């Protein structure tokens, strides 16, 4: 049990890291992108550019939330 907990903890730390909001931000943007691709109505060049902007916006939001919380 202790080994399993340690094993899961290791992979959580490795994959998610210090701030879960970053992983969540990336996951949300990629999930939205996957939904648009599944719908079939998109242009490659426009979608890739918009998703890149989405990643940048999501990262900025996660960081600002972090700073705002730690500033309180």
């Amino acid at each position: 049990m202790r080994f399993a907990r340690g094993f899961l903890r290791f992979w959580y730390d490795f994959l998610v890291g210090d701030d879960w909001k970053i992983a969540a931000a990336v996951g949300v943007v990629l999930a939205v992108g996957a939904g648009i691709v599944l719908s079939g109505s998109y242009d490659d060049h426009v979608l890739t550019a918009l998703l890149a902007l989405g990643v940048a916006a999501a990262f900025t939001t996660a960081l600002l939330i972090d700073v705002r919380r730690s500033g309180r």
Partner: protein
Amino acid sequence: MWSASYEATRSEVTVGSSAVWSLGIATFAAALVEMVEALTIVLAMGMTRSWRSTLWGVAAALVALAAFTTVAGYALTSWLPEAALQLVIGGLLLVFGLQWLRKAILRSSGRKALHDEAAIFAEQETEARSASSQVRLGLDWFSFVVSFKGVFLEGVEVVFIVITFGLNAGNVPVAVAGAVAAVVVVLALAVVLRTPLTRVPENTLKYGVGLLLATFGTFWSIEGLGIFSSDGESLAWAGGDLVLLVLLVGWLVLSRVLIAILRVPTAASRDASLEPSEV
């Protein structure tokens, strides 16, 4: 070992020589940073507890790393189609890169303490001195376990970066060479200096590697979303591989803007900005 299937799946995404250089530099810098951190732990255990047990811990970690590399490399190249491979490893690189970038931004803006190997070494040394002596398999168990964990944890990240960068750039040998060069440099310096490598500009290196990981991670993860299209082909960026440069500049500009916005005023700059009546 996985070269045949990897050549077959990666032929269409091989990138130019500038990307090959970026690849070598990225894996060198990433491995350098991680190995410096692992070295600090190993030195602290060896110097305060037992060199024999510490080095057994390092050896066991290297064996575990080799096994992990084999399994992860085989699984990634054998089971996943090209677009899925880009999505999975691009997504992970993006998360790693943004975590590194987050720390770099917080450190540069004064909101997080700079990474300090000397302080970490002192902390590890104190812990090693106060830990109980437990002997298992003829080894000092504390120094064995701590050095194993230190080398394995730092090493897994390097292995992952090497595999993902190498496969996606279509050049595993360059990625491996970059990481091996870093290990050789760190080991050589450790043997000569016999102290933690406090002069390695880790914070700057982490910032640079964070930018590269975020750039390549953004590129590959979004390309890989094509796995959900009707033909399962990768999405195409406008400008192809050249967009990597645009993404790199974009992440650099965004990080500089965030550092400027979030910067915590120092005591000196606060005093200088106050009006005379406020002093």
